[in-house]
């Protein structure tokens, strides 16, 4: 018999992509952690910030170009409307599983006690302001602050 491994106590999840399929995995991991009583925080960086920008969070799209997982030739994926079509298909399937739309999911995860942070370098790069973000954002923090907050956590990069 091998000894049972120590249960995970805390996770810090980084979301760096802004497509629908780039954002959901991190949110599902964060929410799932809280459901299990694991402490969790989310750190949004680069295009991942779109998931917490008020004006953009509910209009994220599935990437149909440059996404080999779509099993679709690049030129076909580039046809106007293709990304919107793939997005609506995915949203339907997501709803069937009772996974909320991004905005509602962010609120649910935050209410579950998960802290939500925006990456300062990206905020500066894109000339964003605190007001651009949804109210669930707990702060705009540097990489150094992220590591401080992540002390003792497993860091998951998505």
């Amino acid at each position: 018999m091998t000894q049972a491994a120590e249960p995970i106590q805390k996770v810090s999840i980084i979301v760096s992509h802004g497509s629908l399929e780039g954002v959901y995995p991190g949110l599902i991991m964060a929410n799932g952690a809280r459901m299990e009583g694991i402490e969790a925080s989310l750190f949004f960086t680069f295009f991942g910030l779109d998931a917490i920008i008020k004006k953009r969070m509910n209009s994220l799209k599935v990437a149909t170009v440059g996404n080999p997982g779509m099993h679709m030739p690049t030129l076909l994926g580039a046809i106007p409307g293709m990304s919107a079509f793939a997005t609506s298909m995915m949203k339907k399937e997501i709803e069937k599983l009772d996974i909320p739309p991004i905005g509602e999911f962010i609120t649910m995860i935050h209410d579950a006690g998960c802290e939500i942070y925006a990456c300062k370098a990206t905020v500066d790069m894109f000339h964003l302001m605190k007001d651009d973000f949804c109210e669930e954002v707990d702060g705009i923090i540097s990489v150094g602050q992220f590591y401080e907050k992540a002390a003792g956590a497993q860091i998951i990069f998505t």
Partner: protein
Amino acid sequence: MATMNFAGKTLELDADGNLANRVDWSEDLARELAAQDGIAELTPQHWAVINFMRTVFEKDGDAPSIRRLTKESGVDTKTLYALFPKGPAKRAAKIAGLPKPKGCI
């Protein structure tokens, strides 16, 4: 198979430590399981969650998702996590005498 002793009876548990036979469940047992989890008293809101989970399980064969739980039981997300601080899905199901929920949400 793991077991627990309660009120002079030996109850069977599943691999996750949850009750194996739902007929063994009682409100007194729920109070005992809650106490083991550090919940000193089951309030009416705890019971609202427990009873809703049991009702959904009877019908669907699985515990509800957190989203459905908060939308339909009248207990919001913040309250739910305050009621079951060690993880609402897993712990509430255990206290409700149900197997660990299968869903990810």
